[in-house]
Structures are given as structure tokens and as C-alpha cells.
């Protein structure tokens, strides 16, 4: 694990925080054909925070996270992880990050065990360290009994868990998880949450995207609301929700809730 380069000036360090940002993105924008997916998003994720990114479907969450993690080249803007520019020094930046992308395939003809090993060894880790961590991760995520099964035969939730394990194996300083709880059963979700909680407690930073507001409100200390490719609100969860529940505040910010008395015909009585 490399330390952030100390004598390198950090880009646009937020004036309010004494701690350096784990992830700092400035003016990220991306256009696909005629559609602007992300329209200039700037965000500071303080180190040691549990950061939730919420937004309706198609808000640009996945596109933003892909650009912040080096998977999708932005049209405009910068992303800096612990002082390392993701797009100027991609190899250094990627060492600091563990990524769980949404909607990508895995090398699913490997067994679950092999896939986690592969992710670790690809990063040049020592074989024995990898072997030890693979066993720990399989146990923590309750996958020991299926470790020798091909990932292609896994259920959706198991696939999500094995992808999460692949993102954790190199003990990154920043975890970027796109929809980590989708299709995961409640018991496993609770396990994952406690893993993430203790990771944050030990100084790591987690960014999760989700559209389950309840989960974000309970789990995260910071939250950003994204819609239509723009940032609508960001800050600590308590600041953003301003006394209301996060869900109500979200609907209020994003709009589009229809308060009509429609669908009368759907009433059975």
C-alpha cells in the first residue's frame, strides 16, 4: 500500500475540512451522443467518511463513479484520490481504490475462490497473503460452501458478494461500491454492512451508490443527491435531510412525485 504523495499539492482541497479528501472530483461531465449523462459534478468525499450517493434511475450515478474510478474517460473535469490524479496517474490511483462496478460481467468461468485470488494476484500481491485473505473473505461473506463453484453458476446475490470480495482483497484506502446491496439477502447485507462499518472505523473511506434511502440514512454519515446529471445537495446526512427523513427530502429535491388520486380503477373495493 503506497502512501499518498506528501509533497504533492492537493487539488482544490476543501477549505472546511482539516482532513484531506479521499476523493475529490471537479466539474466531471460526460456526454453520450446527444445525451448529457453527467453535467458538471463536483464533490468532496472526506477521508474516513461513509458516503452515500443517491439518485433516481438514470441520474448519472454509475457514470460519475466510473469516471471517478478510471473506468470511463470524462469529457471534462478531474478526479483525485488521496491526492493522486486518477486520469494522470491511473496506476497509482487504482492502487488506492477498490471498485465494485455495477452492470459489468465478471470472469465467471473461474470459481469464486479463483476470482478473488485473481483480483489479488493481478495487483501484484504476494501469493500467501492472497491465500490468507481469500479464506477470510470467503468466511466473512459466507461463501465457503460455494467457493469451488463456477461464478457463472452463482445466484445474483452471491455474484455481488464475490465481486465485493474482489474489490476488498488488496485492502484499499477508498472503496467505491456501485449498488452493493442489490439482490443481496438481508443476512448477507447485514454482514457486509458490519464489514464496511469496521473498515470505516479503521480509517477507510466508503462510497456507495444506492436508491434505497432508508439504507443510506442508517448507514452513511455523508450523502450526495444526484439527478439529471447534476448534484442537487451534498453534505452530512443530517444537513441534507434537514430534519425530514432522507426519503422525503430526496423526493422534494428530485421532484416528480405525482400526488394525483389516479388509477381509481386499480382499487378493488
Amino acid at each position, binding site marked *: 500500500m503506497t502512501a499518498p504523495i506528501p509533497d504533492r499539492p492537493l487539488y482544490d482541497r476543501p477549505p472546511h475540512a482539516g482532513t484531506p479528501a479521499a476523493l475529490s472530483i471537479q466539474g466531471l461531465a460526460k456526454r453520450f451522443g446527444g445525451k448529457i449523462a453527467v453535467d458538471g459534478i463536483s464533490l468532496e468525499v472526506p477521508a474516513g467518511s461513509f458516503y452515500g450517493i443517491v439518485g433516481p434511475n438514470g441520474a448519472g450515478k454509475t457514470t460519475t463513479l466510473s469516471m471517478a*474510478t*478510471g*473506468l*470511463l*474517460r470524462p469529457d471534462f473535469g478531474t478526479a483525485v484520490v488521496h491526492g493522486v490524479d486518477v486520469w494522470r496517474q*491511473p*496506476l497509482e*490511483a*487504482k*492502487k488506492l*481504490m477498490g*471498485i465494485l*462496478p455495477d*452492470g*459489468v*460481467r*465478471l*470472469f*465467471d*468461468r*473461474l*470459481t*469464486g*475462490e*479463483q476470482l478473488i*485470488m*485473481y*483480483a489479488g*494476484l*493481478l*495487483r*501484484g*500481491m*504476494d*501469493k500467501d497473503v*492472497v*491465500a490468507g485473505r481469500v479464506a477470510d473473505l*470467503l468466511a466473512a461473506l459466507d461463501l*465457503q*460452501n*460455494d*467457493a*469451488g*463453484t*463456477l461464478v*457463472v*453458476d452463482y445466484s445474483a446475490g452471491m455474484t455481488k458478494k464475490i465481486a465485493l470480495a*474482489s474489490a476488498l482483497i488488496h485492502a484499499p484506502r477508498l472503496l467505491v461500491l456501485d449498488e452493493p446491496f442489490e439482490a443481496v439477502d438481508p443476512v448477507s447485507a447485514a454482514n457486509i454492512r458490519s464489514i464496511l462499518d469496521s473498515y470505516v472505523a479503521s480509517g477507510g473511506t466508503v462510497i456507495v451508490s444506492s436508491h434505497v434511502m432508508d439504507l443510506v440514512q442508517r448507514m452513511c454519515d455523508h450523502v450526495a443527491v444526484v439527478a439529471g446529471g447534476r448534484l442537487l445537495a451534498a453534505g452530512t446526512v443530517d444537513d441534507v435531510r434537514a430534519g425530514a427523513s432522507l426519503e422525503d427530502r430526496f423526493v422534494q429535491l428530485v421532484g416528480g412525485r405525482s400526488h394525483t388520486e389516479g388509477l381509481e380503477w386499480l382499487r378493488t373495493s
Partner: protein
Amino acid sequence: MVAHLLKLKLTLLRNGLRRSPWQLVGMAFAGLYALGLVATLVVALVLLRNAPQDVAYAAVVLGGSAAILGWGIVPVVASATDMTLDPARFTTFAIPMKQMLAGLALGGVIGIPGLATSLVALSTVATWWRGFLPALAAAAGAALGVLTCIVLAKVVTTATASLASSRRFKDVSAIAFMVPLVLMGPIVAGVGQGISGSTGFLPVLAQTLSWTPLGAPWAVAGDVAAGRPGPALLKLLISAATLAVLTWAWKVLLERALVTPPYAGSGKRKGGKPGLLGILPAVPAGVVMARSLTYWFRDPRYSGSLVVIPLLPVVLVFQGTQTGDFTSLAFLAPLSAFILAWSISADVSYDNTAFALHLASGVRGVADRLGRALACLAFALPVVLVFAVGYSVFTGDWAALPGQLGLSLGTLFTGLGLSSVVSARYTVAVPLPGESPFKKPPGNVGQTLAVQFGGLVVLMVLVLPEVALLIAQLVTGNALFGWINLAAGACLGTGLFVAGVRLGGKWLDARGPELLAQVSVNR
């Protein structure tokens, strides 16, 4: 409702084409191929009108039987049937069974195989245009025959649906299907010889088949024309009964399939077996190699081409015994070298979005390229060496060995270098992970053709020195050229291999995100 289902099928077809103009080009190519085949058959059937009755009879019945047999067999082995109107997708809609059957059956006619079969079947009307009654009988027979084809295919796919949805079955059947495909030449030749050896046998076979469900629909018109109303009527009944029984079977199977979704589970297995990942050195290039090698054996899209290699000498030796001339065996080693080396030129396209792991891990481009190339080399090198030496053992021509080795090794290493560059820069349309190697891949057919063809031309230019030296040896008979060839193949090959891996690695470092974006289009 039937009209709705047909409209749905047409809309799906049209929207598929709207995704990109290249899709249309690909469809046009497939259409042209089918059109050529159909046109030939139609012309042949029209010409048969002037042939003696028994010849026309035998040809139509045998051809028709083969068509029904084909519609019954291909869906099982190819597991690449058109599932755009998969009945499972209609489970939640309460469509009356009768209308669903009619809609799905007619929907099966839309599409290239269905249209082609229908056109050819209808041209038997021209063959039996020897009077009003025979023509009418031919039309009825053709309609029954085509419907039998389609319903039979549906019965077979529905019956094997739960079997076919198991991954293991899909993998195995896809690989097994390669074998007859590669051996097509010898099989056809063998059958052709058998047939020409016993011409008198064919009319008898046709006569027998005409009483079975396979041949009955196609024989009605011929019997009418020959003035045998009794057998004609009976065969019409046989065909109708066959269609009725098949439709009933389909209905029963469909009813059952709609309430019991296929179960594709498999047993649990504990870990503790890292496989090749535990054996090869734990450096990025080494683990990429281990992963690629694992895929060569576990992914049918890769192992399909592995199955072809041992069959190549079989085909070439067979061809040799037919003609008594074994010169084509000289191409065995270079050809295998080429096939294997070129097979990794679409590696990133095969990964599809799983490539994101390499990108997210910050694997250096060179390590990625080298690992993939070494995985292919691990078995390609022994195969090529065995084939090259085997040629000399077989022919006793040991003077040819150095030249053979030079060209083969040159092709192998140069090809691997070139593939490393190509797969780092261009994506091609390949079957998606988990799909049958025979499935028509989504995506840009035009670019695929351009990349494949362009790559071939470049490879030919790159191995030109070795080819020239081989020709020089053949012309002059001077063994020295062979030894120079061996040296040239080894040196040039390794040089280009290293250059290719480095250039490919550089491009991958620079363009990784763009490459991921390209493969994400087809998912």
C-alpha cells in the same frame, strides 16, 4: 392475438436492425447466402419438372425428408435457435393456448430459415405442374411439410429446454457440434460415394421414406401425378396425422414448461483448488496467463477452436487418400499456427465487460498482453512442433523440416504479436460470455469483417520472408534455404512477438477505458 404475435416478431426483427446500419449489412450477407442457396434449389426444382417422374419423386422426397430431419436435429445440437419469441416470456400474459400455438408456429416461418424452407417447399408446386391435381397436391404437401418442420423444431426445443438451460449441457453440446462441422467434407464425400455406388438404392429409399412422417408430405404430389390416388390419400393422412400429433405434443410440453421454469442449478462445491492460479508464478503476466488458460478449457467459445485442431490432420489426410496427393498436408503446421495465433485477436471482445477488472486493478498493458499470448503459446507451440515434425515422419521428407518449422514458428509468433496489437485496439462482434459459440453475435458486423480481413492481410505481409524462403527451397531444392527459413522464422517471429506485445501493451495503457466502452456496447 395471432396477428399480435406476428407483429411482435416483425417489430423485434426491425428494431434489431435499427440498432446499427452494420447490423443490416450482416443480415444482408446472411440473406444473400440464403438467397443463393434458395435460388439454386428453386431452379433445380423447377427444372425437375422436365425430369422423369421417378427421378423427380426420389429427389423431392429425399430432399424434403432431409429438411424435416434437419429442423429436428439442429435446434438440439446448435442450441442457437431463435428465441426471440421464447414462450417463457409469455408466461405472465394469459394468452389462450390455441392462439399462442398458432402465433408461435407462424412466427417461426418469419426469419431466414423459415422463409427459405417455405420458398423451396413451394417450388415443388412447379415440379409437379404436370396437371392441376398434382400441383394442388404439391401445394398441400408443401404447406404440411413446412409446418411439420417448424412444429417439430418447437417440440424439440421445448422438450429439451430444461436440459438445454443447464450450462454444462450447453457447453458440451456446443463443442460436440464442432466435430461433425469440421468433418463435414469427409462425411459428405463418404455419403456421396456410398450413394453413387448404389444408384439403384435411392428410389427404394425414397419409396420407403414416403411412407414415414419424414417423407409423406413430399410424396403426395408425386403419387397423384403417377396416378396412384390410394397411396396419395394415405400419405396425405399420414402427414396430417403427424402434424396433429406433433402439435398436440408441443401443446402438452408447452403447458408443462410454462408452469415449471427450467432449473439450472448445480451442486455446491467447496474451494481449496486454486488450479492454474496456484501453479503459475504470482506476477500479473503469470496470473493473466493462468486465467486465460483456464478459459481455454472451460469456455466453449475458446475450447471450440481447440477441438478443431486435432481434427485438422484427419481432414487433410482424408483428402490425401481421396486424391492420392498429400501435398496439402504441408499446410497443416502453418495453418494450425495461424488458427491458434489468430484466435486471441478477439480476446478483449471475448472478455466483454469482465475486462473492467483488469482496468480497475491497474494491470499494465504489457502484462495483460504477455499473459494472454503466453497462454495461447503454452499449447500452440507443442501442437505446431508436433505437426511440423509429424509431416516429415509421414512423408519421410526430412529435408523439408527446417523450412516447415521456420514458416510455422514464424507464423505462430508473428500472429501472436499481431493479435496482441489487434485485440488491444479493435473490438469485434463475438458471442457473449456464456452463449453458444454458434450464436449470431450482436454488434458491428462490418467492423468485424474489416478487422479480420485487415489483420489477415497484415499477417501475410509480415510472414512474407518465411513464405518466400519456403518457395525458394521448393524451387531450387537447396536445403540451405530451409535452414535460413528456420533462423528467419525464429528471429523475425520473436522480434515481432515482442514488438507486438509492447505496442499492444502501450495502446492498452493509453486506451483501456475506450476499449471497455467499446465492449460495453455489446452486452
